[in-house]
């Protein structure tokens, strides 16, 4: 216990040092990203640590969370919606119905040529009808003021509401994937999630009608209690308080905003920890661990392994979805171009494994530590590389080295992962 407290104190010291030596703004923005990563790491830990499921699609579930924020809280675009919103909705419903019908045909009809033919006919007919309805509607939406809008717009509801919706979207995707890939060889889930994540992000990049694609959707409202810096700087009460402290109002306002985000994210994190600690120490949690440690024995005891796996996979993905939604809320914009598997999938995995898989506190520690390392290298790395190469003559080699500073962290991360797996496979805070 004291060791664990010491580890957390050590990480806290890192953030305090960043604050005093660099700036508190930097330290707090790193902290916020770390808290978001910690929530994602909790989701991954539920899947991997409790159940031994290997999910390589964290990026996709986080992106779905972000998409929820746009759909719920972005300002409405009435003209865009009127141009083709109902048409798109209809097309999507038709597509879903076609798939449902095909599944029904597969389940109800007698196996044989006729079943295969009917199923193919339903699927192909459904696809043609879907494209027939969808293409003109999407085109109409995208041609509505493409420079500023070109999307169907959101519901203009509060941003906080989008967080559970993000969780629901991610859970839905996880259900579909889990239904197919769970119960088969364990590697299949890894490959299927890798694929679905790429597809989700590709859809967000290319389907401009949802959220403007790579043109990015900016100006999303902030979640409820967090004010805008500009407003804060004009509030008399804030100005009085700041002048009383004798600090710069501009910097302080941005620190206050970041602190409020930190509190908000901390609350969500605390809620997730509380819930998952309760779950882990309940009969359900013991059953999950029993399944993870010996599937055959658990099955012999009458546990439906695939079903339990599906449950925990959906739960974990929903948690990742919440984190993805919180991130988009904080950034105030959805930028599909920035989702890359390294930052959103594999970094989270390193956090969970370094922290200690199967232990929630370990995942949080891992998220804070690895997240800090990752982001601090981003800001300090080029400077350090610049110092190292300062004595060198200008030329191709020097620019190459300075540019390559950011790739060093890939290498470092890989080496850390391999070292932890080899020499301390239970992580910094091992499972009890």
């Amino acid at each position, binding site marked *: 216990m004291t060791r664990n407290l010491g580890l957390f104190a050590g990480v806290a010291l890192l953030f305090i040092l960043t604050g005093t030596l660099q700036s508190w703004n930097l330290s707090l923005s790193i902290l916020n990203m770390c808290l978001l990563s910690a929530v994602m790491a909790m989701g991954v830990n539920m899947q991997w640590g409790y159940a031994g499921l290997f999910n390589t699609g964290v990026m996709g579930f986080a992106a779905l969370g972000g998409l929820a924020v746009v759909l719920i809280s972005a300002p409405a675009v009435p003209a865009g919606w009127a141009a083709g919103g109902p048409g798109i909705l209809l097309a999507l419903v038709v597509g879903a119905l076609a798939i449902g019908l095909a599944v029904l045909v597969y389940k109800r009809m007698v196996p044989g040529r006729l079943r295969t033919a009917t199923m193919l006919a339903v699927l192909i007919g459904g696809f043609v009808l879907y494209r027939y309805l969808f293409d003109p509607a999407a085109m109409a939406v995208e041609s509505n003021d493409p420079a500023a809008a070109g999307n169907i717009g959101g519901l203009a509801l509060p941003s906080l509401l989008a967080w559970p919706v993000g969780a629901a979207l991610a859970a839905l995707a996880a259900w579909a994937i889990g239904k*197919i890939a769970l119960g088969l060889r364990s590697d299949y889930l890894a490959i299927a999630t890798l*694929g679905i994540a790429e597809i989700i992000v590709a859809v967000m*990049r290319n389907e401009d009608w949802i959220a403007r694609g790579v043109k990015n959707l900016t100006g999303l409202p902030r979640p409820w209690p967090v004010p805008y810096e500009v407003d804060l700087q004009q509030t008399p009460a804030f100005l009085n308080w700041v002048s009383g402290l004798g600090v710069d109002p501009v910097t302080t306002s941005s620190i206050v905003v970041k602190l409020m985000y930190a509190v908000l994210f901390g609350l969500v994190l605390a809620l997730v920890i509380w819930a998952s600690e309760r779950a882990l120490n309940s009969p359900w949690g013991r059953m999950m661990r029993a399944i993870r440690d010996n599937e055959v024995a658990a099955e012999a005891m009458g546990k439906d392994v695939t079903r339990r796996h599906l449950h925990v996979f959906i739960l974990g993905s929903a948690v990742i979805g919440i984190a993805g939604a919180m991130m988009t809320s904080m950034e105030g914009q959805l930028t599909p171009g920035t989702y890359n598997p390294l930052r959103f999938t594999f970094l989270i995995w390193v956090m969970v494994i370094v922290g200690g898989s199967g232990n929630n506190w370990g995942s949080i520690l891992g998220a804070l530590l690895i997240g800090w390392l990752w982001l601090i290298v981003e800001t300090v790395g080029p400077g350090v590389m610049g110092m190292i190469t300062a004595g060198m003559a200008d030329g191709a080699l020097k620019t190459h080295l300075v540019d390559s500073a950011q790739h060093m962290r890939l290498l470092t991360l890989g080496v850390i992962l*391999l070292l932890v797996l080899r020499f301390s496979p239970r992580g910094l805070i091992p499972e009890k």
Partner: protein
Amino acid sequence: MDFLNGLITFLNFVFVPGLAYGSQLALGALGVTLIYGILRFSNFAHGDTMAFGTMVTILFTWLFQGWGINLGVLPTALLALPIGIAATALFVLLTDRVVYRFYRRQKAASTILVIVSLGVMFVTNGIVRLIIGVDDQNFADGGRFVISAGDFKTMTGLSEGLAIKSSQALTVITALIVVAFLFWFLQKTRTGKSMRAFSDNEDLALLSGINPDRVVQVTWILAAALATIAGGLYGLDKSFKPYTYYLLLLPIFASAIVGGLGSPLGAIAGGYVIAFSEVTVTYAWKKVLGYWLPENLAPDSLVQLLSTDYKFAVSFTILIIVLLFLPTGLFKGKSV
């Protein structure tokens, strides 16, 4: 005449590119499937091993070009390929010695090995980006075309041209030679036979005195050679960019799974299935259908089923179909 023109358009835009891409995927999937058969885990680092091999090949190609050595119409990269293979073989043997061997001795679960391969993927990826950067690198030289579209038109008098790039021809020929060699090796040589025995039943193979370390080493060397050749050919045909090679992981795995993980024949079939589906689904059929269908039925739209941005959706969908209906793949791979 219209029918021939349509056929040529089809060959030019669907068949030839699909054949070349399929050969590249098949070579990649063979590597994945060999590792799976012998070492029993899905190697996530395979895409980056391809990138590593291609990087070494590119560096030596540039060196040779600098020295003024070339192969005439053939790309200089062919000369650098053996060096790339040797370097990659050394690299993967090193990773096996430093990383994988420990877990093999421990008899670790295959998921652990997958995560370990993720770590190796990071390191390889980092090394590649550190050395050659993240940008597109073009290293093709020599003759561009076996037949160019213009020559074909004057030769046949058709209004559509059939262009065969030399990189495409080279890909298919190399793939044929490599696959023939691989099957000869697996079927006829003593080492190849011991590899198949090891893959079928590890305990029995060990009992009959097969040296497991040797089998594993040979497997890594073969996988490295296949990865470098696949990567080099892909780079010649398209271009080299580390991130693209990471993205190749999905179609390659899909190919290996469609064919049946652990089955070399399946990997080849899977590669072509994935490649042809990808090209067919993302190709705009307007022109071909315009030739083939009667005037009044000719389509107005592009008749493109899926935009090229979603090409991984194709491999993914095929993967899902196989997982749903045929989890052991076309050629009955390992089911555990």
